[in-house]
């Protein structure tokens, strides 16, 4: 039985991952902005087998409450075996190019709020001397593309931060995992035309994530073939890449 904290619990991927951990009879603490969803999920996860489900309404962009909310989880659970951070928003690239306030908002949601939470969690886990921190970033962070570089660079910031944190927490036996999903058919990507072999369901991605966390991988591409795709994308010479409308 593991104690699992899920931040951004209402995201489609978080929901699917929580369900897999519920089947393993874990204790889950869910944080999300949406109280109605939290209540629905709590019942659902309990029926699916979770030993205990707690939840709290939480806005990741309200940085000032981060410390307190992690303390609240610790008060309840005593320790955290897995902290799973999956909140985020898909940026409107065009709007962010025109308006820095929009870009800043995206950086806050997708990068700085994550780093703030990681700061609290790292402090706690290094004293606990065990546990795992897993964060959803994106394949978009592997290389800046003109269509999506605000979102991509925010995710890249988190990925680089996680690399450093992984080294820092290695001595404390805390694992730091960077999860990079490809195209996932979720409400976040609602506006994008779906279909084709590169789109995965949240359930499929959740299986990759839970399996990767079990194996304590450093970087999980979900599904795994995205590692190959991004290898190709990253190996295109810049003089060519800048001409591609990617």
């Amino acid at each position, binding site marked *: 039985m593991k104690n699992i904290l899920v931040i951004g619990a209402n995201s489609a991927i978080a929901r699917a991952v929580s369900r897999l951990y519920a089947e393993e009879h874990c204790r889950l603490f869910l944080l999300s902005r949406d109280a109605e969803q939290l209540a629905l999920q709590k019942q659902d996860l309990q*029926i699916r087998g979770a030993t205990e489900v707690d939840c709290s309404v939480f806005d990741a962009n309200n940085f000032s409450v981060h410390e307190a909310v992690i303390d609240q989880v610790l008060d309840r659970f005593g320790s955290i075996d897995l902290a799973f951070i999956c909140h985020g928003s898909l940026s409107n690239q065009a709007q962010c190019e025109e308006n820095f306030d929009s870009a800043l908002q995206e950086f806050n949601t997708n990068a700085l709020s994550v780093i703030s939470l990681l700061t609290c969690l790292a402090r706690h886990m290094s004293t606990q001397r065990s546990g795992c921190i897993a964060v959803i970033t994106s394949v978009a962070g592997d290389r800046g593309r003109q269509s999506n570089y605000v979102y991509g660079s925010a995710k890249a910031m988190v990925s680089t931060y996680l690399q450093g944190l992984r080294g820092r927490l290695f001595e404390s036996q805390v694992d730091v995992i960077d999860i990079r999903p490809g195209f996932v058919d979720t409400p976040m990507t609602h506006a994008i035309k779906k279909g084709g072999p590169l789109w995965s369901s949240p359930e499929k991605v959740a299986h990759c994530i839970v399996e990767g966390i079990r194996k304590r991988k450093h970087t999980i591409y979900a599904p795994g073939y995205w590692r190959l795709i991004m290898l190709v994308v990253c190996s295109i010479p810049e003089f060519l890449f800048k001409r591609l409308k990617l």
Partner: protein
Amino acid sequence: MQIHSWGRYPTADAALHSPRSPSALRRLLLDAQPNDSGATTAFDGIARGLGRSYGDSALASTIVQTRELDHLLAFDADTGLLTCAAGVSLDTILHCFTPRGWFLPVVPGTRFVSVGGAIASDVHGKNHHLDGTFGQHVHSLRLLQPDGAVLNCSGTENSALFHATCGGMGLTGIIVDATINLRRIPGSAINQRTLRTQHLQEVMERFEASAATTYSVAWLDCLASGAALGRSLLFLGEHATDGHFRAPQRGKLGVPFNSPAFLLNRYSMGLFNALYYNRPVNSETEQRIEAGQYFFPLDSIAHWNRLYGRKGFLQYQFVVPDAAALAAISLVLQRSSAAGKGSFLSVLKKFGPGNDNILSFPVQGYTLAMDFKFENNLLPLLDELDSIVLDHGGRLYLAKDARMSEATFKRSYPRWEELAQLRAISGADRMFNSLQSRRLGL
């Protein structure tokens, strides 16, 4: 976007909505929607679960997908009463509860259908002759009405609406959640016996003789003719009693893209059917197989509908009363094989008595389902088959239908006016319409 159901025929251009909570669903219905010209219009569309109906019953210009409404809401481990949101799939239920010794009282041929869809189509399974339809095991359901009210419906409360909604093809409102009776089983595996029969009359006699067997279904060689017309393999099944419980597993196979439809022709299908029929069968011994293999053989091949190519296929499923069954089914088989149309999978099943649900498909008798690749000359043939079926007092399954005429429907579902009246009274006729309901004049 362009959307189609399992048969991939027809397609419709639809605006898709996937509300994430009952309150979001309600807002979607009540808030006026902006249309192309900038004005606002009231909601007019249909609910859709996992898109496993074959034709146009879950197609409309506005579609409400229930896939995000997929929470389990309550479970009583003493009685087996499960309350869940309409978008929960039967796969999820089996996955969660089979290991605990519970099974769904009725499962259709695929487990990738939603609870809402199973109720709306009042689906049946291989135990229909004993246990009836899915709707007969629904304890109660909550229905979102055109005015935004959520009504509790059951056999005793708002029962007219309940019987209109079970089998009602989503035309009475949107099912928000439902409470269904799960059933205790002694083991999840199935002990199967396979009987090879020489012709249609023999398989029907075997069905009658095995009326006490819980599960029965026959695969029929639709291209056999003459004395072998209707030769079949009859699969009889009972739950194993070994106390082992395992949920159906996901298959590894899939069809990644549309296959060229010409690969399916009368010769390849004739060969397949002959080989399948003649496979080694020992009718004396029982075979222990996993539940998934017995109930959902096709679920192990993801996207098998793509085998029929880009234009898709139609599944033709009809039921005819006992007395007329032999004659009607013989005529249908003769007519379709004379036209050179065959089907990989033709499934024959004996039905028990029908129920009180207004548009429920089953009646006491026999049902045959055949898949036909879509071709331009298919539709006239199906019209001919319609007249055979109707002349013998039968009717077609709405969940499979994509083309029957309004006259055919109204003649074979004589209670349609009851549903139309209920819809007119509640205002559902102005809000809940599918391409099918418009075609059928409901």
